[in-house]
């Protein structure tokens, strides 16, 4: 954990092979599996991998758990629908260009939320994000621009070939995922990323070492709203009809938290693993059981099981086990790591602070 929370590990050959093959699999997937039901599940999986990554990029690295990011998802979805409708934009692949616009509007919303919410302590922050989320949902229900509970219709490209209808959405989701992972990969390796981790480990000490705590927290919060807003726009385009409770959905936040915790909070690969596995299962259950209750119960039980038996998540736990078997590391370091295996955020404090003291906080 000590190493994990400080400098990012070097990019090994094995990792490069995994990344290249993952890209290849994602690229050819819809060409092999042409069943629309399957590609739809895949679109949602990609979308939730990207949004979990963004959620982790703020919550996992700063230690501030947000249960209000779904507000930015909804803002993105409504931005997309309102612009497409008001300007009577033709239903076609050009509409994908609205995704970054939706992302930027979501970032503006995040600035407003962050200015208030980030002033509070960690646990109050969690609660405030829940409150802020409900404010957005209520606005969705009550503003005239969102058409209230009757929702908004989004232009559907009817002239697209039915057999490959899902493919443009799929590749848009894949590009969103690639962008998000790349963004956080760069952030993780930057001074900014280290400053963020130092806030998670010990905010007061980070401040003392000269980290501009407030600015770093707010920036990370706002940055994480961008992919989430874009995903909201993609969701609106894909579904074709949005309602306040489908885009401002409190279960989204729970999903992102769960996917991140299951995969491994604070890691790059963790949210991706959690996202692809859990979202696929959820979409599958939705499709074949059409029973939301069972999946709520399954979700809750998985959540509890992970938090008590694998509090650091799958990626760090399995990674350590593999490394231990290979014996690539000295025995003392391994034991130090398993010793620090408390609950995920904040574990291994100090290491990132040391690095920040050296090079991060200027």
């Amino acid at each position, binding site marked *: 954990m000590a190493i994990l929370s400080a400098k990012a590990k070097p990019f090994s050959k094995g990792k490069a092979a995994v990344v290249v093959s993952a890209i290849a699999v994602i690229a050819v997937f819809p060409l092999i599996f042409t069943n629309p039901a399957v590609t739809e599940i895949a679109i949602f999986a990609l979308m939730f991998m990207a949004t979990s990554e963004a959620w982790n990029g703020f919550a996992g690295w700063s230690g501030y758990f947000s249960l209000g990011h779904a507000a930015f998802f909804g803002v993105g979805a409504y931005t997309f629908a309102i612009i497409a409708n008001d300007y009577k934009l033709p239903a076609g692949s050009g509409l994908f260009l609205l995704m970054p616009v939706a992302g930027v509007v979501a970032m503006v919303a995040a600035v407003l939320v962050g200015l*208030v919410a980030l002033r509070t302590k*960690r646990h109050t922050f969690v609660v405030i994000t*829940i409150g802020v989320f409900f*404010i957005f949902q209520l606005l969705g*229900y009550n503003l005239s621009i969102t058409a209230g509970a009757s929702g908004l219709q989004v232009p559907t490209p009817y002239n697209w070939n039915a057999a490959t209808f899902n493919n443009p959405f799929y590749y848009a989701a894949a590009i969103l995922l690639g962008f998000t992972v790349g963004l956080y990969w760069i952030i993780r390796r930057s001074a900014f990323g280290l400053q963020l981790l130092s806030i998670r480990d010990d905010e007061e000490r980070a401040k003392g070492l000269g980290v501009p705590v407030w600015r770093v927290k707010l920036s990370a919060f706002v940055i994480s709203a961008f992919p989430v807003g874009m995903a909201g726009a993609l969701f609106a385009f894909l579904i074709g009809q949005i309602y306040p409770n489908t885009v401002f959905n409190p279960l989204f936040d*729970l999903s992102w938290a769960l996917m991140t915790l299951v995969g491994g909070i604070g890691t790059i690969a963790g949210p991706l693993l959690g996202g692809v596995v859990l979202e696929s299962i959820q979409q599958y259950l939705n499709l074949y059981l059409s029973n939301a*209750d*069972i999946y709520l119960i399954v979700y809750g039980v998985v959540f509890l099981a992970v938090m008590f038996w694998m509090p650091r998540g799958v990626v760090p736990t399995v990674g350590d086990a593999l490394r231990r078997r290979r014996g690539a590391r000295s025995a003392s370091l391994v034991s130090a790591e398993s010793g620090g295996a408390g609950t995920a955020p904040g574990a291994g404090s100090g290491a990132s602070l040391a690095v920040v003291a050296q090079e991060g906080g200027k």
Partner: protein
Amino acid sequence: MVTDFIRAVIDGVLSGSVYALMAAGLTLIFGVMEVINVAQGILVILGAYLSYVLSVHLGIDLFAGLIITIPVMFILGVGIQWGLMSRLGEREKVSMSILVTYAVAIILEGALDLIFGPSYQQLTAWYVNQSMHVLGFYLPYIYVFGFLLAVVLLGALYFILYRTEFGRSLRAAQQNRTAARLIGIDVNRVSAITFGIGVAVTAAGGMVFGATTSFNANSSADLISRLLTIIILGGMGSIGGAMGASVLMLVVEALVSTFWSPTWATLVFYAVLVVVLAVRPAGLFGQKAVRAQ
């Protein structure tokens, strides 16, 4: 105009007392264990469904049924503390407690929805449908009885906290867990009973809530957001603050609903939270920091 105003204030005070009861349990749990019990909302709904089952299937009166539902909820609370919360590590305990109780909440929500279905229910009894006439105001009996019940239970809570040996241990644990343990207080036992009490109040709160509002399993999301807003405004861990904030917020909501529009009343609830926290991060009634993290 004046009548409307008084009417709204009375409504707010009466329903605020029930929220005070539910919020007191939540803030008590936080004060002693630094656990934010996000499942409190669904536990209130569970309490309402328990009263529903007793009254519909067994014909037991809503208030008499509390003799059964309060102990049941108490045991459930002790079970959650013993089975889950006591096993949490000390690191990032507050955030982890939110996630764990959130998981408990969605399991309960899924189970309740599965058993009772999504259709809205409301508890019925003669005092739910009839009103008493006081000084030109019609007050439904259930609001008056609910208010009296809340006052009695909050009084009992006060007695337990400030006049019993257990209450002394509890307040000691609230001030300083480690020191309390050092002077021989069984903090684990105190925690379990505190969680039990904090959850037991949801049986009574749920019964009154279910008799005054139609509910289904999804009602818990709105409820927990309100309760969390209340305990933050009241200053986390402060029971008096939670009671004050409950009444204040419900009065404000009733006023907004009367003089502006019911649709925006709920929004005001959260808007007040955001404004207050922007000015005073410790909450309205918060001492400098009731257990600052």
